[in-house]
């Protein structure tokens, strides 16, 4: 599903060169729940941003579902993100002026292949699934952190993306809420065969992953399955 070849990302800060990613080569299979772990500054988020087309690699290639994403122009990348990718951010990143329903519906509203009824029904289904339907008219500021993150997940999967990217989604949550979010990821992964790539630095999260890669100084230092069964 995702093929990464010799991915490099070099930032230049004045005369200093920082290798955020240094020759990462990796394949991610469909339906996999992959954890990217590593210390701060190891390149986890950079890798996630490269895979999610939020940043451009210095060199190397990324193929998603057979598409060489480096060949896409700006608009095509936007459409690729809209139709094929979903994102969950550490700080939820909900639009503060939109209600829960509007936040969840937003990506679906832009799809040309969905009618108003279809995206509304899809949003209702997702909100029901995450147990937030009764909060559909609330604004993000009226929700707890855990609830906001669940809404953020709902927004990410409303378009039924091929791949879901999550960048430390539990970083701002307590253990109870973190577990709730991870359970939700697990459920989505199992029920919808949703490919999930999640960045985390919490060791206990690994029980949820099928496979974990560890990064250090922009390089993959380990890549292994956890024993949790992938689909």
């Amino acid at each position, binding site marked *: 599903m995702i093929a990464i070849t010799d991915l490099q990302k070099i930032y230049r800060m004045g005369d200093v060169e920082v290798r955020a990613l240094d020759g990462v080569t990796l394949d991610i299979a469909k339906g996999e729940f992959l954890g990217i772990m590593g210390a701060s500054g190891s390149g986890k988020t950079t890798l996630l*941003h490269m895979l999610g087309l939020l940043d451009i690699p210095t060199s190397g290639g990324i193929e998603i579902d057979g598409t060489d994403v480096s060949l896409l122009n700006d608009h095509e990348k936007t459409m690729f993100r809209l139709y094929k990718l979903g994102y969950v951010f550490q700080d939820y990143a909900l639009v503060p*002026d939109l209600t829960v329903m509007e936040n969840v519906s*937003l990506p679906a509203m832009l799809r*040309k292949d969905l009618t108003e009824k279809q995206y509304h029904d899809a949003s209702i289904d997702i909100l029901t699934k995450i147990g937030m339907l009764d909060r559909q008219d609330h604004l993000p500021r009226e929700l707890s952190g855990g609830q906001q993150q669940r809404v953020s997940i709902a927004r990410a999967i409303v378009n039924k993306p091929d791949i879901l990217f999550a960048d430390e989604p539990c970083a701002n949550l307590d253990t109870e809420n973190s577990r709730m979010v991870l359970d939700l990821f697990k459920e989505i992964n199992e029920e919808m065969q949703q490919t999930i790539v999640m960045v985390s630095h919490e060791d206990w999260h690994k029980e949820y992953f099928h496979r974990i890669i560890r990064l250090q100084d922009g390089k993959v230092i380990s890549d292994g399955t956890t024993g949790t069964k992938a689909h």
Partner: protein
Amino acid sequence: MGKKELKVAFLLALRSLQRGSRSSVILTILIIGMCFTNMIFLPGLFNGIGQSITKQVVDYEIGNVLVSPKSGDQYVSDLGATLSLINGMPGVERATPHFTKGATLKYRQRILGASVRAISPNDEKSISPLYTKMIAGSYLGQDDTGEVIIGKPVAGDASIRQEDEFQSSLGGVRVGDSITIDYGNGYVKDYRVKGIYFTGWSQADSAVYVTSTDMALVDPKAVDNADYITVKAKPGYSETFIKNELIQYGVSQKVQTTSDLLAKSMGRALQSFAIINMVSLIVSIIITTVVLFIVITIKTINSRRQIGILKAIGVDKEVIMHNYGFQVIILGVLGIILGIIVTLGLAAYMAIHPVVTPEWSATLYITPMDLLVNSVILFCAAVVAGYVPAYQVSREDIQTAMRA
């Protein structure tokens, strides 16, 4: 950009305004509204002054068209034939002669210089609303002799001491009093004051009126001569049409429209008004543009991370740009509506309480076209001011935006 994208952009804009900082929205609308009012108020007032002066000149001085002696002549001669000719023309409501003599008015110990205007009272009613402006007594009868009507400032106020007067007067003449008029040709005659009028037009108010019949006794030349003839056009006939018609029909005197005369006498003033209007317009546009630019720039700067997030979840940069564009459009439209309401409110207030000076009185003169043109100008300025920062921020790459 499809319909769906525009719908999403509009939703984002609407929600941002509905649920964002209410004080910022209200303040922005207020500023745009005040800018609109500023854009239209001064020109409207100047137009009102111009309209007021024009109306008063037409009503109390020269009508729509003035027929005055041709170069080298002192009077419009052969008056009877000339009046018959003019009054018979299509489009002419009425033509009436004025014969004016300088004189000294005397009342008790007071002496005052004034113009004595001889009119044909019945014809004058078709030309001038003077007869409706009587504040005491009555208007002149067609063949009155020995009777005069005088302006309120000429009559004066008995309760004001002479040294305290703003404008010299006869010190409190009342209807029925007798005043002496000492004409420039040495003819002295006592008149009974038949009425006192007040028009608000200083030149008319500082004059006195007698009948042409009476003036013929004072100066025999008044019988078949006039200083000028005022011509009133029928509704629907333009001044220029009447002027051309008079010339075409062989009126050999000097023929000028009110516009011709005002252009000569007020040309400089009108030019000054135009410059002030232009400065006012430019300043208002600049203020509106800068304010909206700042508002949208601050909004976009504060929302850079959110813009990055929106792009990350697949919202196209055009949608993001139009989101801010729609916000500006909504703010601009609401500001313009507020401005129109304030302006119409001011116009209504000034219709009841006009600006009054000793020379003229004026209200706010604003046409629907003025409102439309200023609305369009301000709207365009607002759109430019909003779209520039929106365009810039929507082009920012996701990483830079998300790191903000």
